[in-house]
């Protein structure tokens, strides 16, 4: 066995071990400390489902998709009922990378939407007041109304 390979293997292991240590720590999914400055409503809610075709990569246009949540706790403001509809901007992208010129004040630590996950959401009222681009609403036939606009979306580890 060649020396070069030994040292390369040892080197890889050292760095991996370095990565592992903090991986076991509690630093994961810090809740954004200044989150109460985002939006007018703040809730913890469970994403009930992701309808087929509701989230996809769309290279040419920005879009928002409407997702359905079960509200678990209201931290700030008021929402209509236990089940709410929330519009997410460009949902195929991680929340931390989604802000752009069109929708600058938006973010969170959520990387991917998964049905059943719990999110801590900072919301604003009527989505159409905040976003005038294409909207994909798979709940149109349910008469989804109002549709809140997600300003900040963090994943909550249960």
């Amino acid at each position: 066995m060649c020396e070069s390979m030994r040292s390369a293997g040892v080197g890889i292991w050292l760095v991996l071990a370095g990565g592992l240590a903090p991986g076991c720590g509690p630093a994961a999914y810090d809740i954004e400390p200044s989150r109460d400055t985002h939006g007018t409503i703040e809730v913890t809610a469970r994403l009930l489902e992701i309808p087929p075709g509701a989230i996809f990569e769309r290279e040419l246009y920005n879009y928002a998709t409407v997702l359905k949540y079960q509200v678990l706790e209201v931290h700030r403001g008021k929402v209509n009922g236990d089940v709410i509809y929330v519009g997410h901007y460009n949902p195929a992208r991680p929340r931390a990378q989604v802000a752009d010129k069109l929708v600058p004040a938006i973010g969170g630590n959520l990387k991917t939407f998964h049905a059943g996950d719990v999110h801590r959401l900072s919301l604003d009222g009527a989505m159409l007041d905040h976003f005038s681009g294409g909207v994909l609403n798979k709940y149109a036939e349910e008469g989804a109304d109002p549709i809140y606009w997600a300003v900040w979306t963090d994943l909550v580890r249960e």
Partner: protein
Amino acid sequence: MCNKRLIDWVVIVPLLAIIAAPGLIQTAFEVRNRERPGVFEVFDRAPTARNLHDFERDLERSSLVLRVLRPWVQYGRFRLLADPGEKAVAGRDGWLFYEPGVRFVVERRSEPWQPGRAAIDAIRAFRDELQARGIVLYVVPVPGKESVYPDQLAWRATDAGVIVPARTAWLFDELRRHGIAAIDLFTVFRQLRGGRVHASPLYLAQDTHWSPQGAQLAAHAVAERILRSGAIALGNRRYRARTAAVDRVGDLVLMLQSPAIEAFVSPERVLCRQVLEPDSDVPYHDEPAAEVLVLGDSFLRIYERDEPGSAGFLAQLASELQAPVASIVNDGGGATLVRQELARRPNLLKNKRVVIWEFAERDLRDALDGWHIVSLDRSNSIPR
């Protein structure tokens, strides 16, 4: 022997470094930011195929090395090979085309063509519902840039003028067969172009959309047709107009997501005809109670809600009709989403005599969310 050993070193160590570096850099970066390394997220969910693929995609998307390098690779390909990537096609004189739009023209359609049938069914159902309310529907399939400027796309089409793709020709035939009023912008654009790229092209070179001149011409053709049919009369609101210049980086350039390419490509300067309310400098705005409702996609949004504002198809149409219009605009959602939105806002149909329904011709193949029959009465839609 010594030389061989050196070569082994020279080959192996850098190659191992290359494959190990992105993961290690990413981990180090995340640790430094007091984040949990993304690679451990694989253990957060049940190992289903979907979760694993999501994890893989997230890992790739969050990779620092990839995010830094990718735009530069795009730039290199763009400069060296005139290759704008997989979603765009390079034409002549710096023109760019949207690849799905080109495929819409080029690709064979299967028989029976389900998306086409679904489109016809949805259009017929919508026409019938509007007819029951005494409203006339006009369907306006907007030609793709590839259809209007095939000569800028491919050498073989140098003298072709405006072409009508097979799918679109089929749509017009079907609309005619079912007695649905359609406005043929292909003919309108063909008459103007006459096979030339004139000084004011009807489409932008680096964008999928029409130019201000294209929007104006389309609005003129639509207004003329509606007025001629007698569905509504010419209004009496004399809008004013002024010229506004806009520097626009095309959506096809932005789509490449490479700041280096954006910096390299000069924005296109276009002169827009901004419509103003009568006797004021206030830009034109829609009125929900207008007699004409326009549904459509980003072809309605450009210049109207984007810069400079009130200079797009809607404002030009209002100017031609000498009356305001109401509108529902949904980027890429001309096929179904605009009608769903209308079903949610039935008040918009009050006082209406004409509905103009615009959608991009490539929606026949690639409609966002497909073609659904949307009932205006029950606000429900039947997936097709």
